[in-house]
Every structure is written in C-alpha cells, then in structure tokens.
C-alpha cells in the first residue's frame, strides 16, 4: 500500500524498530509521578475492607452484620447474599475460559468458604480503623469441614469433596460419584508399547512442584464509584480494562454501557491480574453507600486470596535408542486448580513434549480442585511445571546415553514441517537456531570448579494474538498520538510508539503513546499471552499505514496530482509527477497544518483479530555452586537464548527474558506455598515467601535469536512467557551436575539439598 514498508526488504531499511530509545513513560516512572492502582483518591471516598475465611473448608451457616452496620462511620456491608447467583456459563474472552459462576463465587463466598482467605463479607467505612473495627464485629458462624490441599490427596476416593456437583469430564464413562477431579485430558500419538519396546534405555521419574505466586510487587487496588444514575466508574490496576468491565458487568448483573474502566499503571501482573477480585466488591459497596470506595489489598491478602499457580505431581517415562533417538514418552500431569476447576494442565499437556519430535507418546492431564486459592494465570501457564519434569528426564537420558544435552535436543528437536505434539505442523520456528546459540555461547564451554554444576533446559510457549484496537491521530504540528487499549506492563508503550514511528517515518519522540479507558478506544483483549507487541502492534502498524495513505492523498490534493504520484519517504511526501516538478516535498508538519483545508483532521483507527502468532522457544544454561555445609545453591552464571522473531525494542525484550529467568530461579530454589495442618497458609509475606533478591542472582545474559514471524509487519513473536519455562529444570539439572543426585521436588531449598547429600554419603 505504501512505499515506506516494502515488506520484502523491510528489515535493512528499519530506522526505529530494533533501536533502544528511552521509553515514553519513563520520566513519570523514575520521578514517582506515575499513578498506580492505590495512588488515586476520589473526593468523599470510603475505605473498603474484606473479611476473609480463617478456615480452609467450611460451610457458612450464618453471617450477622448488624453490629458492624451500626458502628458509626460504617457506610456499607455486603455479603454473598448481595450478589446475583450466576449460571454455569463460560466466558471465552480469548483468554483462558473462565466459568463466571466460579468467578463470582471466588470474589465473594456464598454457602461455603473454600480456602483460607476466601472473602465472606466486605465493609466500607470512613477510615481504615473504622473498617477494621467493623470487620471484627461481623459474626460468621462456620461449620468447619475436612479439607484437602495436596493434589494426589485431593484425587483420592476418600478425599473431602469441595463441589458435590463436580463429575470428572473427559473420562470414557461419566463417573457415578462426584470428586475433586474436574477433568482429564489426553493427547496421544502412535503406539506407546511399541515405542518402549523399541527403546534401548528408559528413564522414569516422579516430580513434584509446589504452588507459587506471581509475586507482583503492587498489591491489587482499585477505586470504584457507582453514581445515583447507575453510571459506574472503576479505576484499577489490571492487565485489561475491558476484562474488568466484562467481569464486573457479569458478577453484578450490570449493562456494559453503564461501566467505564480506566486503567491505572500496573505494578506487575505476570498473569495474576487477568481476573478480578476487588472491583465488583468496591462497586457493590459504592452502590450501597453512595460514595466512591477505594480498596487496596495487603500482601497477606495477595498471597492468601489471589494467584497462585498450581502445585503438581508428575510422572515421566522416556524411551530412546542408544543413538539418542526418542522412541516413546509417557507423561502424566496432576495439577492443583485451587478451589474451582481450571488449572493450566491443558496447556501443560500441550507444551510438555512440544520441543520434541516423538513417534509414540501419551500425555494425560488431571485438573484437580482442592482447598487453596483458585489458581490464576502465571506466565506461560502450566508450561514451566511440565517442562521441569520432562527436561529433568531429558537430562537424565543424556547422562545415561553419555550424549551432550544440547546434542540430544538437537537430534530430537522440532523443526519446520514437523508435527507438533499438540497437533499442527510447525512453520517458521527457531528452536534449532536457539539451541545452536546456547551451544556456541561463552558460558557453555567455561570450565567448572569444585561443587559446581551446569544444567541445560529448553522450553516452549504458543504465544497468542487476538482482538485489539489502535488509533493514530496526527496533531496539528505533525506530531502523532498512538492510542491503544492495552495496559503497559513492561514497556509496550515504547514498542507501540516505535512501530508507529517506523511506518510514519518520523523520530520516535514525535509519537506519544497512550493507554485509554474503555470508553475512549475500541475493545481490546487484555495484556497477556505475550500478545500485545504482536497483535496490538499489528493494529498500530495498520492504523499508521492508513494515516500514511491519507497523508499521500492530502499531498495529492495540495499539488493537484494523482495520489499514485505521491510517495511517502522518511516522514515526507514527495511528488513524482514530472508535470508538477518531481521531487517537491511536503513535510508531515506542513500537511498537518493544512489538514483543515484538505479534508479535516488526519486520523485512523484499526480494530482486528490478529491471527498467526508465532510460537516461541527458549534454551537456557545455568551454572550453580553448592555449599556442601549448608546446602545453599548459588547461581553463578546464566545464559538464556530465545527466538523472539524480531526485537522491536531489544532492551525490553532482554528485560522480559531476564525477568522470566529470575522468576523461574525463584520457583526452582525458594518459592512455595506452605500450609499448616488446618490448611492455612503459613508464609503469606515476602519474608517467608522468598522471591529472588539482587544478591541472589548473577547478570543474566540474554541472546536474541531472530527467526521472523511472517504474520507480523516487522516479524515479531511474543516474548514475555517463554523465558519462565526452562529455568526450573535448568537449575535442577545444574544441581544434578554439581552434587550427582537427581532432585525431583521443588523448591531445591538448602534442607533438601543437605538431605540429598547426606543420603548420598550414606
């Protein structure tokens, strides 16, 4: 359509994409001006607080809030009785499907509290102190029920059943009795028995991981205002303002048109802010009190009642020929879903063997409810867990066959034209290139000292596209505004501005990106699934291309030539009509200044449903040193290579990779939910739930492998999720190499390492 973006040779001519400009929202974020969820105050606002169940599993016999309501300064009290009962309805927003009835019951318990921390009532009062006092005056009578946390215990036939209406889906026959097993899924190919019969060596293992939290530093926060005319405004920190609008409408039975959601800056999400906890409660309290209501979670609330991702038990059996060729794989994944169905075991199953070309396999996944918080998405949901098991087994296989772990992965690795374990045929993937990048990186051949070890692991994530809207407006001085509906969680404003600047042919500083509220831009799915730079970026590029077409048309009007005689190059219209002085130019500023006379403001909006997001692969190498006295593991060096398609802003792509690695290292070494015998979380704070700190980590080298995605204007693939997939196994494999013992239960905390060393010493 335009000369600026000749796709065939776009790459060598890029001027903005691939550079490292300062992010457009940077100054606000280093000076404390950026407004996050808890930073907004409304005139007359009240403080909203939640009463949470102290029991892991209990019937709510009665709730008496009379005394709380009578306390001076208390303006509203709501309980489950104030919310409509929803039918079993799946909302398919393109994100993982959520059952709205479950979502509503997770926001506020009805007849049963299903985990320690489950909301049972909420109050709004004139101050935090009064709200806290009111919570203490609410009398809840519980009938405490037996509870179950661990996944295999919850699957047992004598386990306490959370939902008497839950009958396992996906079995050959519908079971006669309800259970905690929500679903079984199965992916299979070939003949498993024949595959193992053909194997020269077989590796088997049982692997265990614990629930871990996304650990964003900003607790959930919102302000909600329900006006007398029924118009609702919500300001909140989330991964998607349209997601908040949809869920509030459903949970409260409201019209979408009556709700406007304005996104605050978001202080980290990692998938954990793809659902609602506070917003419907704040709206309900605002309706009852007639005041705006602000709600901010404590860190204790965040741990006990939001996130986490599943704990799991997994079994992996691999068969291979002496030469390393994989002949068979049997994988069983059991994932905790938390209090309601919907663990990421489906994605875990689909990704478990996605790096390998295996003729015979069966992958079985079990989605199991138990008395812990309902899991939320966490960066490549389900994939790191499965990769921990499979990549640990691959490492054992390489050891047993005495084959280099990269060579073993190259030998069995997927490439273009190979049928993925989850079905379709791969195209435009860069797995082998990513393996090669690690094989040749300096760290891979660095000598190791005593008590040191090196581990390698690979990982896969699909990445998604989906519905996005973007608008590009040209201001009267020739500068531009790019508007999208996607919260900027890690620098996406920069990549949006850069892509628009590239198409417009102007310096990136001339483009101001902004994130708009739900009334100011068309629908966009949330920021998640590594979709924003791909899908919303595609909308931005197309909107900018429409603007360029319009700019050429305006120049044609001014010069009185045919529009095909006007080209757009480097932000300037150039006349090619020999009859009217070839080479005459009009700047963007000049065209913008005259836009009133040539047809009005210059602006374009594009809404699309982006398809064909390219799958991503990562390969990591981790070096560790073990302190044999204490069992402490130090990560000495870490290199992560990833196929990113095309890095729009390489610094923020590296940042995604480094951040994913850090979270994965925390998962491997320190992080876990610990429950006491009553099913209460024992470590609901950053002191006892230990995320990695600066002194725990080395520099993390990120290698950007660029195998272009032909579906994206600049070749981008999603990058945010892949980097958390390999680290769990990369760390565990490094520990195996250092101590000579295979550790199969995360986290690899000092007491476990000490015990393994003691057992080895006999």
């Amino acid at each position, binding site marked *: 359509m335009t000369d600026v973006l000749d796709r065939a040779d776009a790459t060598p001519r890029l001027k903005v994409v691939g550079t490292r400009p300062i992010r457009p929202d940077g100054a606000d974020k280093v000076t404390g001006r950026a407004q996050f969820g808890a930073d907004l105050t409304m005139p007359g606002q009240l403080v909203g607080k939640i009463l949470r169940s102290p029991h892991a599993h209990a019937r709510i016999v009665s709730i008496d809030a009379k005394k709380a309501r009578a306390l001076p300064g208390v303006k509203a009290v709501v309980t489950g009785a104030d919310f409509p009962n929803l039918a079993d309805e799946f909302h398919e927003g393109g994100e993982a499907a959520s059952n709205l009835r479950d979502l509503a019951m997770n926001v506020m318990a009805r007849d049963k509290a299903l985990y320690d921390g489950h909301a049972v009532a909420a109050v709004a009062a004139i101050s935090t102190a009064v709200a806290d006092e009111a919570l203490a005056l609410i009398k809840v009578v519980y009938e405490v029920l037996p509870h179950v946390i661990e996944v295999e215990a919850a699957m047992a036939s004598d386990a306490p059943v959370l939902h008497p209406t839950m009958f396992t889906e996906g079995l050959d026959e519908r079971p006669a009795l309800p259970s905690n097993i929500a679903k079984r899924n199965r992916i299979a190919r070939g003949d498993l028995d024949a595959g193992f019969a053909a194997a020269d060596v077989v590796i088997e293992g049982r692997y265990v991981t614990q629930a871990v939290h996304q650990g964003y530093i900003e607790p959930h926060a919102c302000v909600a205002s329900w006006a007398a005319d029924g118009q609702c405004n919500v300001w909140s920190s989330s991964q998607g303002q349209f997601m908040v609008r949809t869920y509030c409408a459903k949970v409260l039975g409201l019209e979408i048109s009556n709700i406007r959601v304005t996104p605050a800056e978001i202080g980290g999400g990692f998938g954990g802010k793809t659902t609602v906890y506070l917003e419907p409660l704040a709206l309900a309290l605002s309706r009852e009190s007639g005041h705006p209501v602000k709600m901010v979670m404590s860190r204790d609330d965040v741990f006990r009642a939001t996130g986490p991702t599943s704990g799991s038990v997994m079994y992996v059996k691999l068969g291979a020929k002496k030469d390393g060729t994989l002949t068979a794989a049997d994988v069983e994944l059991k994932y905790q879903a938390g209090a309601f169905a919907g663990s*990421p075991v489906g994605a875990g199953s689909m990704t478990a063997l996605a790096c390998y070309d295996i003729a015979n396999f069966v992958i079985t996944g079990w989605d199991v409810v138990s008395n812990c918080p309902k899991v939320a998405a966490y960066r490549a949901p389900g994939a790191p867990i499965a990769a921990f098991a499979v990549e640990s087994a691959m490492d054992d296989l390489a050891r047993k066959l005495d084959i280099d772990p990269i060579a073993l992965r190259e030998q069995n690795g997927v490439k273009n034209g190979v049928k993925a374990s989850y079905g379709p045929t791969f195209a435009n993937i860069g797995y082998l290139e990513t393996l090669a990048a690690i094989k040749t990186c300096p760290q891979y051949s660095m000598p190791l000292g005593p008590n040191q070890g090196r581990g390698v692991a690979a990982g896969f994530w699909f990445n998604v596209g989906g519905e996005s809207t973007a608008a590009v407006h040209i201001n009267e001085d020739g500068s531009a505004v790019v508007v999208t509906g996607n919260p900027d969680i890690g620098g996406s404003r920069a990549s949006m501005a850069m892509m628009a600047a590239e198409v417009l042919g102007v310096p990136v500083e001339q483009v101001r990106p902004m994130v708009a509220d739900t009334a100011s831009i068309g629908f966009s799915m949330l920021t998640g699934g590594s979709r924003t730079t791909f899908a919303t970026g595609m909308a931005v590029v197309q909107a900018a291309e429409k603007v360029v077409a319009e700019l050429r048309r305006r120049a044609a009007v001014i010069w009185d030539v045919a529009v095909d005689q006007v080209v757009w190059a480097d932000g300037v219209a150039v006349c090619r009509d020999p009859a009217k002085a070839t080479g005459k130019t009009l700047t963007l500023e000049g065209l913008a200044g005259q836009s009133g006379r040539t047809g009005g403001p210059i602006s374009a909006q594009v809404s699309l449903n982006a398809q064909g997001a390219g799958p991503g692969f990562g390969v990591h190498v981790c070096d560790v040193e073990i302190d044999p006295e204490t069992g402490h593991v130090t990560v000495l060096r870490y290199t992560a290579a990833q196929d990113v398609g095309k890095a729009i802003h390489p610094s923020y792509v590296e940042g995604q990779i480094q951040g994913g690695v850090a979270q994965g290292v925390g998962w491997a070494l320190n992080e876990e939910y610990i429950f006491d015998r009553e099913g209460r979380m024992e470590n609901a704070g950053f002191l006892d739930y230990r995320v990695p700190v600066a002194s725990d980590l080395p520099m993390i080298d990120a290698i950007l492998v660029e195998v272009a995605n032909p579906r994206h204007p600049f070749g981008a693939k999603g990058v945010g999720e892949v980097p958390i997939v390999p680290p769990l196994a990369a760390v565990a494999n490094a520990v195996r190499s250092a101590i000579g013992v295979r550790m199969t239960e995360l986290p690899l905390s000092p007491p476990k390492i000490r015990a393994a060393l003691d057992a080895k010493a006999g």
Partner: protein
Amino acid sequence: MAHVIAPSDCRQFTGGLSEFDIEADTVRRLVAELDRLYPGLGSWLDRRMAVAIDGEIHQDAWTSPIGPKSEVYFIPKIGGG
C-alpha cells in the same frame, strides 16, 4: 479437500470419527459443514476450540481462509499470562 483433525472427545457427535476430509474455504464454512454432517459438532468445536491452519493458530476466526489442501487442526484455546 482440507484434512480436518478434531480432538478425540468429539466422537460423541460422530460415532467414533475424529478425522475428516471437508470441502470448505473458510473456518466459518468448515464449521457449518461439520455441523451439517454431524449435528452439534461444528458449534461444539467452534465454542471450545482454536484452529491451526497449516500450523498457524487462529482463534475466533471465522473468516480465516482454508486452502484446498490445508491441514486444519482443532486444538484447545490458548490463554496466557
């Protein structure tokens, strides 16, 4: 004819089949044709599944084109973090 592969739990609609050869040039037409052949199957797949056309994943994409020799794979919808 596009070669269509659906997950095994679609057999409730088909009496055992999960692979089909179907004449259709868009996802919408493919779903309609599956519904005609096996009542309920098309809308069941349409509601729950994404589709990979020659390896490329499409979600909620009725207008996506299908070639005469395309491989069309129905897979669960993918979310993400």
